[in-house]
């Protein structure tokens, strides 16, 4: 991305000469013909599978799309329906709640695990493998195990364990107050391994002399972490925050597999609702509206994150 941007800036500077378009196109072609030729297959793929569906789904929001036969133009009907659809807003709210339960814990756990394997502990590579295991295991399997652990009956594994410390059996996935947290826990478990890898790479790139200097100055381990490690991981924080945020807004599989959106819509997320509307209800136009709503939410959140987290880290 960065190289492309730089390239574009460079091109704009060159363009100041204001040669006629034909001339400029020719020069450009002479200079970079091979680049364009190599780009064409990718561009076609990009157009067919990204740009065209993206544009068409916008058109879809203004139609009553019947799949077979002629679609009917209905203007803003689906958009108005969206703003009046309490369930859609509940789904968005659930998704936001899910993000709260998910993003920071995933980052914290990933960082913690990375610190453990980076600390030179014995069998570090072995632990790395163990922590990474959920990432490479099929989500369906992990979800099945999670559902089994958090079974809401007395014989459920977690209920059995907490019974030793005197806690009554909990309903977990069958309780509207707990279900979403249990699902978020599942995602944290599943994803923390990959955030660990990002943080691990980040930790490795922090210059060792900073730590040495801090140690000579007599800084405590706690102080070293908060004044050196944590701030210097800023680019990683930014990257991990973006991908976990996007991931959290797209959460679908766990609710599809474990709760079916219930109890009483408490785990109906925006993508799950979109799926129900589009592929169970065949209301593809409304589903397209929901997907645009999701797109705008992710866009806005990413822009905010970029503004506050994305600045270059200066080392010294």
């Amino acid at each position, binding site marked *: 991305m960065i190289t492309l941007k730089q390239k574009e800036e460079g*091109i704009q500077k060159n363009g100041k000469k204001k040669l006629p378009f034909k001339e400029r196109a020719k020069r450009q072609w002479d200079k970079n013909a091979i680049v364009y030729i190599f780009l064409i297959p990718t561009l076609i793929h990009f157009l067919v599978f990204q740009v065209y569906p993206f544009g068409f789904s916008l058109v879809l929001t203004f139609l009553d799309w019947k799949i077979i*036969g002629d679609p009917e133009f209905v203007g803003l009907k689906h958009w108005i329906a969206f703003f009046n659809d309490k369930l859609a807003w509940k789904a968005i709210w659930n998704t936001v709640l899910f993000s709260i339960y998910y993003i920071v814990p995933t980052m914290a756990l990933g960082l913690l695990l990375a610190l453990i394997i980076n600390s030179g502990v014995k069998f570090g590579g072995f632990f790395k493998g163990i922590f990474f295991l959920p990432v490479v295991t099929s989500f369906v399997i992990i979800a099945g195990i999670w559902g089994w652990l958090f079974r*809401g009956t007395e014989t459920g594994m977690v209920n059995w364990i907490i019974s030793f410390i005197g806690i009554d059996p909990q309903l977990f*996935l069958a309780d509207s107050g707990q279900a979403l947290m249990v699902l978020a826990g599942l995602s944290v478990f599943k994803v923390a391994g990959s955030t660990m890898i990002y943080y691990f790479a980040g930790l490795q790139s922090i210059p060792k002399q900073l730590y040495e200097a801090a140690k000579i100055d007599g800084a405590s381990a706690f102080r070293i972490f908060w004044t050196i490690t944590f701030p210097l991981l800023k680019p990683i924080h930014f990257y991990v925050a973006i991908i976990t945020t996007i991931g959290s807004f797209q959460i679908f599989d766990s609710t599809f597999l474990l*709760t079916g959106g*219930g*109890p009483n819509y408490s785990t109906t997320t925006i993508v799950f609702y979109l799926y129900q509307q589009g*592929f169970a209800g065949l209301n593809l136009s409304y589903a397209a509206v929901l997907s645009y709503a999701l797109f705008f939410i992710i866009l806005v959140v990413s822009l905010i994150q970029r503004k506050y987290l994305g600045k270059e880290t200066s080392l010294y």
Partner: protein
Amino acid sequence: MKKFSFLVLFLILGLVLAACSSDEEATGSGDGEGGGDGEVSGEITVWVHPYTADAEAESAMWDEIIASYNEEFDVDVTIETIPWANRDQKVLTALAANNGPDVFYAIPDQMPQYADEGMLLELDPYLEDNNMDDFVDTALVSTKWQDKTYGLPILQEAYTYFYNVEVVEAIGEDPENLPATWSEFEEWAKKAKEEGFYAMSYQGGGSMNGTLYPFLWQAGGEVITQDDEVMINNEAGVEAFEFVKKMYDNGWIPEDSITAMNHDALWNAGDILAVQGSGISLTNLEESGLDFVIAPPLKNKEQLTYGTTGMFVVPSNSDNPDAAAEFIKVATNAESQRKFNTITQYIPTRESAKDIFDDEKYLGQLAEYTQYALPGVIHPIGRTIMPSIQAEVQSMMAGEKTPQEAADAAAEAIEAELAK
């Protein structure tokens, strides 16, 4: 300024694409209008699914069915086996792009939805010479929408209750004499609870066809009629809501029933008296080594249960509707059904074909119950309203609403969906 040239490139490519797609549409719709007159020939594509794990046996079966079709009609038939995963999307995208199959397999809640959108071919004109009386009545329920027939059924299932013999004996009852009515079941459920068992599984996170609906039908109720009359909150409807509530509050069904997707672990551990199951569950049950007996569907006012129907339908944009309709007739005749259901172990939808299970203890018994098996809510919004009804049942079970309030709220949600 390279940006600008990129933009031009994008635009040109976009236009080319748009041109391509509209070309396709134009030719496609032109083709669709052909057909309709006498001679059956040409070729058809049939989309089937892997009904068993044995692909070879299935392919041999289809070859036999095609051979018997070809005895009468000179049509090239291509069978394409489409994986079950995301089948809906696959069918929809193919039909939308006008390169879909001429015949495909549909399940009950798809049919009215597709038919209502005008996506399916009406089959009545082809059925005069087809022996329709041989079909089990309940099997035809899901093939009709607004008095028109859109599909012919090839398989059926019937959900009923499987009892764990050990638990039946542990509560001092006779496995030969299983509950047939709600009140008899309640007696057993109380005893099971006293002995520390759950009486029944209840998959509250799954389809309503496995939870509320069978009780609703047994109580004499209905969710919604084909004429858009919402019935879910009438007296019978509320009775069904109350029954579910009673089972949950008394601990007859497991505590996690509100969203549970399965209770296999509890059943396999011998903690549950009865589970709902059908022919598919038989294999698992036989493998689990538990000693079980099968009871008929429960009766309150009516003796009814859920059981899906599998049917073949013809999309309205088929290039060869006549050949497709004739193929469906052959594929669902008694002889083909015997072949199909012997391989797949589903229950034939023709009475005369049920003789394949005469010697099989369990399947023979289940085959008798398809006459009670309703295919779910046959309405275009059948699938869409399910989450709303489910949410109301869930909030009732959690104690947030009374059965009457939950049923009323469900009715309101259905009305809202109808108004869309």
